[in-house]
Structure formats: structure tokens, C-alpha cells
């Protein structure tokens, strides 16, 4: 190979099965290539460009061969395959970009922003919801947040806010099968936060469970916005229908139901412009 192979692995699938420490045997195949490469590269330390004339041809050769070599190279390791605009016979095509550790070079909290994840207080299921991370690196040095290598297809996160609580949360609808489960989750997510907000105004540390979200009997009621921007009460349609159309959840005061649902719809129109 003209360019040195990056990691020497054969295919990404094998890569994942073989732990880093045991990959030595790959390198035996490469040592002979490597030595020839080293001999070719006996360079003087002159100013750059001195070797131009001799190697001019080989540089062009490198460039021309580039796409094909790159395609072989990209099979190895954690790279993306090159985009489908260049013709690759041997490259593996992937429909979505695969994960590369530490790429793109953005800080963790920006990745979370981009995937729509809100605070580090945690989501209902602790999944990053976006890029898969290389388990080896992220689990050991995840920056403060445990990120399990969970596939994004598995999680469907919607934002949920509650009246009187400044911090929003997220709920993974795919982890729920019924309205009851959802109601239970809402209680779990907000009970503590709500109590904390009340602490500042009144003394006492009671954490009241949040109940009656679905039947209008509780102090709070669960509502949602669907994919058309309309605001609805949760619980009217079969679960799977709800889950496929819900975009966002909101816990409102039961006393505000009528105004929230009518006023809300108009405002939603404006916000969506």
C-alpha cells in the first residue's frame, strides 16, 4: 500500500471483536511493507520541496491513487466510508455515518445540545440519544455523565415541562407502554423538583406525589403537543397513536386546562413560524 495503513485491521466488524491489546498479530503482516516504506522515506532534512523533482511523479501517483486507497483505508478502524460521490468498489457503504471517537471535535455539552438533551440532571433512560460512542473510551472517561452505548433507534425522547418548575426534563416514550407508566414517570421526574420550588416559599419537606394527571382529578394535568402543533389532553387516543404523534409534553395546572389548550394552540402557530 502506498499510504501506510492506519490500523492494519481488516474490517470494522472484526475490529470490535478483538480487544485493543490483542491486535499484535495484524502487524506481522505489515512489517515487511513497513520496512520498504521506511527505506523509501530516507529523507534529508532539507527545506521542504527539495525532494519535489524526484518524487513529483510519486506525489501525483499518490493523489491519483488516493480515492481507492482511501476506500481501503476507511474499512479499517473507526472511520466513515467516504461519501458516495467518489466511486468505490471495495468500500463498505453505510447509510448513516458510523461513530468515531472524539469526532466531530465539539465539547460534550455541545453534543448534548445538538441532540436536544437538556440538563445533566438526567433523562429517564440514561442514553445519549445521539451518536454512539466507542464504549472503550466513553465509559472510562465519559465526562461526568454515564453514557451507555445505546442505539439511538431505541430511544424516543420528548421534552416535558411542568408549571412552576424552571427546569425541563426528557422522557423516553419508547421505554413506556401505557399512560399509567408515563404518569408514574412524570411523578418520578418532577416530584422532587416541585417540592424544591415550594421549599423556598413554605417550610416543610413534604414531597407530595403527583397524581391524577390523566383524569382531571389531580392538581396537575398532563397535556401534549402533537405533530400538527395542537395541544391535547393526554389519554384520549390509544397509546401507540399518541406515541407516534406526540412532540412535546406539558404538565399544567388542572385549573388552567381550558385556557391552556385554546390559547396554547394559537400561540403555537406563532412560535412555529
Amino acid at each position, binding site marked *: 500500500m502506498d499510504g*501506510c495503513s492506519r490500523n492494519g485491521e481488516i474490517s470494522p466488524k472484526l475490529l470490535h471483536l478483538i480487544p485493543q491489546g490483542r491486535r499484535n498479530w495484524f502487524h506481522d503482516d505489515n512489517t515487511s511493507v513497513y520496512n520498504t516504506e521506511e527505506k523509501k522515506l530516507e529523507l534529508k532534512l532539507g527545506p521542504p520541496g527539495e525532494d519535489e523533482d524526484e518524487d513529483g511523479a510519486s506525489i501525483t501517483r499518490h493523489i491519483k491513487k488516493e480515492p481507492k486507497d482511501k476506500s481501503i483505508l476507511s474499512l479499517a478502524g473507526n472511520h466513515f466510508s467516504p461519501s458516495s460521490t467518489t466511486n468505490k468498489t471495495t468500500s463498505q457503504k453505510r447509510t448513516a455515518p458510523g461513530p468515531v471517537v472524539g469526532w466531530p471535535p465539539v465539547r460534550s455539552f455541545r453534543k448534548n445540545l445538538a441532540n436536544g438533551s437538556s440538563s445533566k440532571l438526567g433523562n429517564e433512560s440514561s442514553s445519549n440519544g445521539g451518536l454512539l460512542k466507542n464504549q472503550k473510551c466513553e465509559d472510562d472517561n465519559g465526562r461526568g455523565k454515564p453514557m451507555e452505548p445505546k442505539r439511538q433507534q431505541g430511544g424516543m425522547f420528548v421534552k416535558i415541562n411542568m408549571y412552576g418548575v424552571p427546569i425541563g426534563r426528557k422522557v423516553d416514550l419508547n421505554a413506556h407502554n401505557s399512560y399509567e407508566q408515563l404518569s408514574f414517570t412524570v411523578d418520578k421526574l418532577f416530584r422532587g423538583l416541585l417540592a424544591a420550588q415550594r421549599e423556598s416559599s413554605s417550610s416543610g419537606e413534604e414531597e407530595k406525589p403527583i397524581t391524577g394527571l390523566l383524569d382531571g382529578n389531580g392538581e396537575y394535568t398532563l397535556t401534549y403537543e402533537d405533530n400538527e402543533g395542537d395541544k391535547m389532553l393526554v389519554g384520549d387516543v390509544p397509546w401507540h397513536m399518541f406515541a407516534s404523534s406526540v412532540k412535546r409534553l406539558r404538565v399544567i395546572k388542572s385549573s388552567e386546562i381550558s385556557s391552556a389548550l385554546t390559547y396554547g394552540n394559537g400561540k403555537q402557530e406563532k412560535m412555529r413560524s
Partner: protein
Amino acid sequence: ALAAREKKKEEEEEMNYFPDEVIEHVFDFVTSHKDRNAISLVCKSWFKIERYSRQRVFIGNCYAVNPVRLLRRFPCLKSLTLKGKPHFADFNLVPHEWGGFVQPWIEALARSRVGLEELRLKRMVVTDESLELLSRSFSSFKSLVLVSCEGFTTDGLASIAANCRHLRDLDLQENEIDDHRGQWLSCFPDTCTTLVTLNFACLEGETNLVALERLVARSPNLKSLKLNRAVPLDALARLMACAPQIVDLGVGSYENDPDSESYLKLEAAIKKCTSLRSLSGFLEAAPHCLSAFHPICHNLTSLNLSYAAEINGSHLIKLIQHCKKLQRLWILDSIGDKGLVVVASTCKELQELRVFPSDLLGVGNTAVTEEGLVAISAGCPKLHSILYFCQQMTNAALITVAKNCPNFVRFRLCILEPNKPDHLTSQPLDEGFGAIVQACKNLRRLSLSGLLTDQIFLYIGMFATELEMLSIAFAGDTDKGMLYVLNGCKKMRKLEIRDSPFGDTALLADVNKYETMRSLWMSSCEVTLGGCKRLAQKAPWLNVEIIDENDNNRMEQNGHEESQKVDKLYLYRTVVGTRTDAPPFVSIL
């Protein structure tokens, strides 16, 4: 011999045409670290005068030197800046426990009773213990700036708040802080009225709003206030109302739908903030609230909307159209090429632009492309710094950008897909980046991406004479690439390389080069353990660190083969030898 010595003494005295105090006074006007380092090298007498008068010290790599030597040379130190982990730690390439602990520094400074007033740390591990010790040891301590640090909690902040009587700045930028629920703000005593900067935007937990409002109300000098996401709209309105002198504001969150009364109050408060020049935050903002800020936009010189994932392009554009004096803009790529065209026609004073990716799943949304970049370069004549994340690029566009903007000092382009070629011609982007380095004679920092061969490095070696920091990822073909850079860039200080086929030949070609640099990082390249060992032997003044998270037994003991590729190599010059705080997975050769 005597005559020679006398002559030398005469010469020295000639150097000091003025008495020491006068020279010291002149030195007071020399403030940049580079310049001060330079004057200290002129002669012994100047070295001595300089070191006793030096108040601000910058240490770019905390392992290059140690506290003892620092204090020996600069006993009158008042301000210290320390940087710890290498830059790629920002992208999770450096394990948590690698190092960069500030504790030994604070301990030493405390013991020496130096009159420390300011401490600025970047990528260091800070503990509550360190913060407590800091807060108790320096009676004149005024300013704490922590950037990308970790390891502490709000309890540490409480110590700072409680014990630093003259605290002026508490500036927490993008740190990982364990939030123990917001009582640290109440630890500022009622007598504390000296705050100028209060930035806690990176705290994730709830905030004691009452304590915060009281603190802001009794801080007449407060110029910079950056709130975290737990500060709702009505609290923001109240805060702005008691701090109309604010210059730099970080808005928390508008997650609550504001009732109209809160919004009106906010509008009224904003109108009074005539000194406001810099706006940031909007962590979760309802777009319609942005319009409350329109009245002060014409004064803004700095705008950071890069956390505002909720705001779509059109609202961003509406805001930016009012910002004619903007010099610095950080934004998400949801603004789109169209939005960048608006920026180009509105913000004629723009000097720095950063466009961050908003959709990292990457499929589909081509939010910004080479067109946006070209538009900016054409419309903003003062642009000198850019960080641009995009889905695609062409050589032609980069060549145009280079022609339009030969003044770049920092040029960082990140094409999201590694190895992606020019999307029109399928060629590598060597020519495009080459045009940039050729035209931009003052280029000090460069980050490359896309499909690149050795050719770009030839160009960099030839043209980038002022280049100090270079970031390389998935680029190059052979060791020649790296050699071009090492040979050609005389001012190189920080070189960081990942996933590129550079190996031992390049690494070992010119060992002395690394003495002129701060550090070199190479991960997933072709360097071998044997090569690194040879380097360490040849250059005892370097710390050659091999980082391998899967190997807790230190490589030498396991008898690893010399030809094994090194996963992560980090080397740096140092005058204090091997560090003693390295974790088991770091081998220092």
C-alpha cells in the same frame, strides 16, 4: 583575565544606562508574556529586574515546570495562569484521571505566602479542597477564572464565596461541576459588594434566586453576569432591573412560557441596560422572547447564540439584523447559508465568527455549506478568526475565501465527515487550504479537515511561517507530510494529530525541534512503542507519555513489542523531569 572581567562589568553597566528603578518602571509598560520573556533574556541585570517586577505569569503546560521553580524565579507573583490537559481532552480523547491537578500548586503558593490575587486555570482538575485552601490562603485574592475544569462541586464555590473578602471575579466557563443544589450563593456575606464578574452558566442545578437577587442588588460594580438554566424569565427581569449597568449578560433559560406581565417587565428592564455589549446563553429559549432584546442590539459587540438549539434560523436572523456593530458572533449552523448572507451584509465590523453544528446525526440537513463561508469572507473585511463546522466544502470556495480575507489569524474548518473531498470535483482539498496558508501571512492557528494528502503539508511548511498551532485529523499519506510541517513551521508550538499515517520516521527526524515547541499529540497514528522509546532516549528533557487506557500495568513491564503501535502519544518539553502523579495507564518513557 581581570581586564576581561572589568570590561564585562563595564558593558553591563552600560546596558543599564538608568538606575534599576527606572528600568523597572519601563518594564511595567511591557505586558505581554512573550515580550517579558524576551527582555529577561537580554542580560543578567535585566533578567533580575524583570523577575522581581513580574506580576503576571503564564504557564502553558503545568508539567513543564513546578511551583518551586516558579516561586523561586518570580517571588512577587500576583497572577498565575495554568493550563493542564492537552487540547484534545475537550473531545474525550484524554482519560479523566490523566492529570493536571492544581492542588500541589495551591499548596506551594499558600506555603510561600505569595500575595496571589488572580488564578486562571484551563483544563485542570480542581477539587473542593483546593478551592477551600485557595480561599483561606490569600487575603487579597480577587479573581478566579476556571475554564473547562472539573473535579469540584458547589461546596468549593461556597468556600470561595464565603472567604474571599475582596472577590471581584468568579468566572466559571464550561466546567463540569457537581451541583449540590444551589446554596453557595447564600455564602457570599452581606459585606461582599465588590463583584464585577459572576458567571455560573455551566451549573446544572437549581439556583437560590433570592440569594442571587440580593447579591446582584448589592454589587454596584457588576459588569458581567452569566446565569444558568435554572434562572427563569421573571427572575431575569428582576435581575436586570437591579443591574442596569451590566455590560455582559448570559441569559439562562426561558423554558416557562412567560405570562405577558413577565415579558413586559423584561422588555422594560432591557431598555434600561444601555451599557450592554455582550449577550449569551439562551440555553432553552422560547423564540418570541428574543424580540425583547431587539432595542439594545445596535450596541452589541458580542453575541453567543451557540447554545440556543431551540431557536430556528428565522428568529436568529431577525435578531442579527439589528446587530450592526457586532464584532464577535458564535452561532449554530441552523442559521443556514441564507442567515450567513444576512450576517455578511449586516455585520461589517465582524472579527470573529464561530458556526457550531446543531445536528450531529449528520444525515440530511446541509445547514451551512461553502456558500455561507464565501459570503462571510466577502462581506466582512475585518474578519480574522473563524471556526466553521459544515457538511461540505470545495477548493474553489476556499480559494475565494483566501482572496477575500488574507487577514486570517485563526482558521479552523471542520467538515463533519472525515476524508470528505471537494464535493464538486472529488479532489482533495489541498489546493483550497493551500490558498489559505499562502494568502494569510499572519496565520497563527489552523485546523484541517476533509480529504487531504501530503501536498497540503508541503504548502503549510512552505507558507505558514507564523503558524503556532496546527490540528490534523484523518489527513496525509506518508511521513513526509509531518516532516514538511516540522521542518517548515519555525514557530510551531502545539501540534496535534489524530488518525493520520505519520510514524516513527517523522517522529524521530528532528528531536531538537520539540524543544522549540510546547507539545506534540499523536493518536491513532503509526508511531510505535520502539520509536517512542528511542525518542525518549535521545531527548531526556522531554516527557514522552504513552496513554493506553486498556493497559493498567505500564507498558514496559508487560514486555510489549517495540513494533506495537502506540494508541496515544503526548510529549512535551519540561525542565522538571518525569511527573510523579501519572495514573497507571500512562507510561512516561
